[in-house]
């Protein structure tokens, strides 16, 4: 089984800076991490590797620095990595990102399963996983919390607001996973050594036979026209809890006035 895990490098900070000219995010100079949900996707792949035997390839698209999260993936047990890095990808929205990732995955030879985290914590769109599935023409199951393999079939649990669906899907398929599926492992010593030795070379748009008109800003149907900071809430009535009964009475009174309770 060949499993591909798509991961994203996200800033590990809440200090968001915006380039006022291009209205795009400035990511330089900010510590970066693997998107937390993608760590669960990688762990799910590594569990399948441990139990059934599989090759795990980790793919990311981003600037050259995104190499760091691929090395981190190797140190946890990934067998191979693909770094899609090219100025032509810059400014991609979810449409263009899905397209580029799908093109990249197509260069990896036969692939049985592609895993994503349910969403990235910077954009929160949850669109790229389903988008890649669509570009590959494969079925997509989202918000998966359990995976069972039965030959060429997967049986998964897909989480909804009020419960979950048990779904059977034939491979190849794309899944996005939720946090509760597992607890990501730490890097192993052996993994760290492999990570240090690994050669991670950026792969360009031309190398994945991507059409230039489908990439970057040009290939993106959506445009960001304005970025602004939301007005900060200033806080309301602050009560001293030393007299708990009085404070509780005041708050419940206010909530009754507002007809909330």
């Amino acid at each position, binding site marked *: 089984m060949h499993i591909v895990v798509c991961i994203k490098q996200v800033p590990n900070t*809440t200090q*968001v800076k*915006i380039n006022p000219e291009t209205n795009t995010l400035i990511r330089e100079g900010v510590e970066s991490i693997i998107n*937390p*949900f993608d760590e669960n996707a990688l762990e799910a792949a590594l569990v399948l590797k441990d139990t059934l035997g599989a090759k795990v390839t980790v793919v990311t698209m981003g600037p050259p620095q995104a190499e760091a999260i691929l090395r981190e993936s190797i140190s946890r047990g990934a067998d191979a990595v693909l770094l899609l890095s090219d100025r032509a990808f810059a400014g991609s929205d*979810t*449409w263009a990102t899905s*397209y580029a990732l799908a093109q990249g995955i197509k260069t990896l030879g036969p692939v049985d399963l592609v895993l994503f985290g349910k969403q990235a914590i*910077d954009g*929160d*769109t949850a*669109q*790229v996983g*389903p*988008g890649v*599935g*669509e*570009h590959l023409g494969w*079925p*997509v199951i*989202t*918000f998966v919390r359990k995976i069972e393999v039965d030959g060429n079939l997967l049986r998964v649990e897909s*989480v*909804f607001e*009020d*419960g979950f*669906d048990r*779904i059977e899907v034939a491979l190849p398929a794309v899944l996005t996973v939720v*946090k*509760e599926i597992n607890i990501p492992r730490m890097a192993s010593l052996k993994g760290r050594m492999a990570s240090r030795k690994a050669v991670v070379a950026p792969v360009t748009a031309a190398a994945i036979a991507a059409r230039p*008109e*489908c990439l970057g800003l040009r*290939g993106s*149907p*959506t*445009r*960001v*026209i*304005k*970025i*602004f*900071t*939301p007005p900060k*809430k*200033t806080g*309301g*009535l602050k*009560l001293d*809890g030393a007299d*708990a*009964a009085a*404070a*509780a*009475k005041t*708050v*419940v009174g*206010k*909530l009754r006035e507002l007809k*909330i*309770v």
Partner: protein
Amino acid sequence: MSLNIDNVKCSGCGLCLRACPFGALLLESREGQGLPESKYRKIAIVTEACTLCGACLETCKFDAMQIEKIQGGGTPHKEQYQGVWVFAEQRDGAIQGVVYELLTKGRALADQRGTHLAAVLLGHQQQEHCAALFAYGADKVYLVDHPALAQFNSDTYTDILTGLINKHKPEIVLTGGTSIGRTFIPRVAIRVNTGLTADCTGLEMDEKENILLQTRPAFGGNIMATIICPNHRPQMATVRHKVFKQGAPAAGRPGEIIAEPAGIRAVKARVLEVVHAMGQQVNLAEADIIVSGGRGLGGPENFALIAELAGELGGAVGASRAAVDAGWMPSFHQVGQTGKTVCPKLYIACGISGSIQHLAGMSSSEVIVAINKDPAAPIFDVADYGIVGDLFAVVPELIKALKNR
């Protein structure tokens, strides 16, 4: 995106016509069409009913069919795209609350644009819901009825909505940011080759340009971005529950029901079982009132106090990341950036300091009450009512005050 038929390779055998669940392919004579010379007399033609599902690709023995998922320079004839659509999501035969909120918003957008509002309802024997959809502002309901649509299936729903969009060409399509919406709408957007803006908190028409201004939070609400989809149609957006207000229904408001055929093809993903494991108690996204506990609770046993307050209010129990990571509560209770984003009418934070990640998940709640020992806790910056004190003293008093009517 488009389905292309190679005009040299196609033999006109007609196998693809039989495979197409949507009746979207026709056979025509090659004569007089200005086609390259061929030994074949007929050729398959793609019509607008095509949903790009790909069922035909596998049947073609001549390698003459290809789906080209190409973005290019925008949707041709985009002026033909008219009307505002709302996807009327039903789960187990219940229309989701967000649908009525979207209809209210969609009605305003349609009036501003001088166009109609339509709801799209997929399901089995769901016609009874049409009256309510009209009452909340829909002029039309596109109704697709089939036993296979009773339960959500991502592949099938994607096929059908794609087909309807290609056929009727709406200008705007709004969908709830629910699990169902977030599962299949991104696929539809790729297939119809347009943009999709997730979790919008603001939707407005730019009257000069006649385009939809879609505003959404990013970076956990630290910044807001206004996004447009200038050259592709439809303009598509998802919106979370409780972001827009639901208007008052106009009972008896008339509307037109348009029954649409369901093209169902064999799908690769089959729903074996639908399990409603979680009651309303943990359905945080839907809850009107949420009481959350954090590190200040000191241990899992003290969540009983949180549950008691939640029970008194008829609300759900939430937890901070610290409480979940400590193993005090299962992760589906977690509120925040890596948990659930909630916007209830009332959010009570007990012993939660209010990290940026937590605030990102709950700061849009209507009324926030915070109880914390530390007067400098950031949670007080977003709280409408803050009580600086010991939660073990305050929460029982809150319960007492609520009981005391």
